[in-house]
């Protein structure tokens, strides 16, 4: 399924050095990288842990990925984590830069995304999901720093945990004192099955006054009425649960930053959901 991701992405391996032209690349998240996307370049990037990854790191793997978008640059990033690992993803945006990220975390991993908006009209958009099964532990942190006036951000992260898995989402929106006319939104939605637990902590730190910020967090269970309804139509209990969970995260995949990756991402998820 992961090679399908690559096939459909149909891209070159990300070269060393700055990216100054528009294009499509992929990169395997085995080592730390510094990526600069030059002024006005429009880039699609797939970062994922290849199957070689397991062989490379039998201990816990740690990678720091620093991405910097120069003025007016556009990045569409899909980041897929299937193995247990620690990833720090830092994204800095200059004026007019636009970044859309899709995070798909299917391993017992730690992920920290930090985005800093450093110039007017910069926009950061993140749709993400994590799925933890069995005894897996995982955590996601998303910090969005509005360091400059007239910047916007939106984050939606969905979590699913089953078995006795433990998940955690922490979110932070920070608005610096001089950063006026800010629009920021952060939502964390979670479903827990069986004995699993998910903790969610969205936070706001706002030091400016002309700011529209919203955040929300929920942790719920499967809807037993929906399960009953599906079973009445002949679906097994397992299929009904799985369908509902797939439905719950479907919008994250449907709005994948790189549209063509929708289908292979769906495939990856379906594989994972067999373990629910």
């Amino acid at each position: 399924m992961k090679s399908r991701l690559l096939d459909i992405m149909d891209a070159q391996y990300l070269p060393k050095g700055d990216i100054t032209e528009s294009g499509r690349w992929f990169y395997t998240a085995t080592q730390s990288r510094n990526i600069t996307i030059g002024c006005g370049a429009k880039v699609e990037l797939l970062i994922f842990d290849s199957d070689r990854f397991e062989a490379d790191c039998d201990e816990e793997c740690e990678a720091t990925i620093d991405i910097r978008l120069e003025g007016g640059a556009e990045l569409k990033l899909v980041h897929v984590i299937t193995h247990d690992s620690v990833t720090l993803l830092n994204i800095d945006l200059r004026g007019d830069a636009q970044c859309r990220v899709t995070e798909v975390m299917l391993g017992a991993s730690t992920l920290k995304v930090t985005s800093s908006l450093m110039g007017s009209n910069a926009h950061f958009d993140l749709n993400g999901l994590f799925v933890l099964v069995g005894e897996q532990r995982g955590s996601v942190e998303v910090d969005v720093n509005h360091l400059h006036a007239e910047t916007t951000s939106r984050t939606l992260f969905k979590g699913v945990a089953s078995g006795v898995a433990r998940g955690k989402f922490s979110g932070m929106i920070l608005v610096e004192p001089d950063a006026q006319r800010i629009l920021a939104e952060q939502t964390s939605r979670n479903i827990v099955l069986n004995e699993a637990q998910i903790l969610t902590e969205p936070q706001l730190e706002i030091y400016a006054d002309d700011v529209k910020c919203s955040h929300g967090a929920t942790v719920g269970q499967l809807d037993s009425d929906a399960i009953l309804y599906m079973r009445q139509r002949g679906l097994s209990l397992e299929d009904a649960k799985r369908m509902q969970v797939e439905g719950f995260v479907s919008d994250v995949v449907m709005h994948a930053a790189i549209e063509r990756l929708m289908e292979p991402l769906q495939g990856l998820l379906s594989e994972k959901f067999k373990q629910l």
Partner: protein
Amino acid sequence: MLKVENLHASVGEKDILRGINLTVKAGEVHAIMGPNGSGKSTLASVLAGNEKFTVTQGSVEFMGEDLLPMPIEERSRKGLFLGFQYPVEIPGVSMANFMKMAVNEQRKARGEEPLSAAEYLRMMKEKSAIVELDSKLTSRAVNEGFSGGEKKKNEIFQMAMLDPKLAILDETDSGLDIDALRIVATGVTRLHTNENATVVITHYQRLLDYIVPDYVHVLYKGRIIYTGDKTLALRLEKEGYDWLINNYEE
């Protein structure tokens, strides 16, 4: 087809069904009427296998088999369909995917191969036409954002897709305007054959103008207190339930 004998069911400490007897044969249409809170939806739920209710006494035979030990999905695969009084919204689950899975489960239970994509599309088109269901709705999430009328049409669309032996329709006519009622009722009538049976739970005579019942039962306080023919529905519409209930309580 269906034989319910002395059925008692409760939720928690509360007895809701208190000795239901009902026999439904192939080709028949039964109407179940009765004041709110009588136990009509509970009877439908218990027959469908909703685990919220506990059967404390009695037996149910369906297609020659003991129905009560079967889980919900098995009852469905054996040909029992429940049209929900309140169809459930399932965000993110597309109607088309959901029904495809349901249809294929039914086929599997009959030892048939799954439908090909083309066969399935053809079937959806044909069946949605029966209730004039907008084809856009089948690509949307199950019942999400559907109007009241669309939800009820969608129940009958699903019934058409699954082609059940016994359909129990719980207030499928409630909250419908005249046009939607005509479409839903005509759909149900078209799906009725000599090989299947339909039980409609309703408050209104108007549905029964389309679907002419062989029997009309009045359910009250968990029992069927009276059974008549189609003229009973007319009389209930005119005179209400009081004359029956008063008799019953004396």
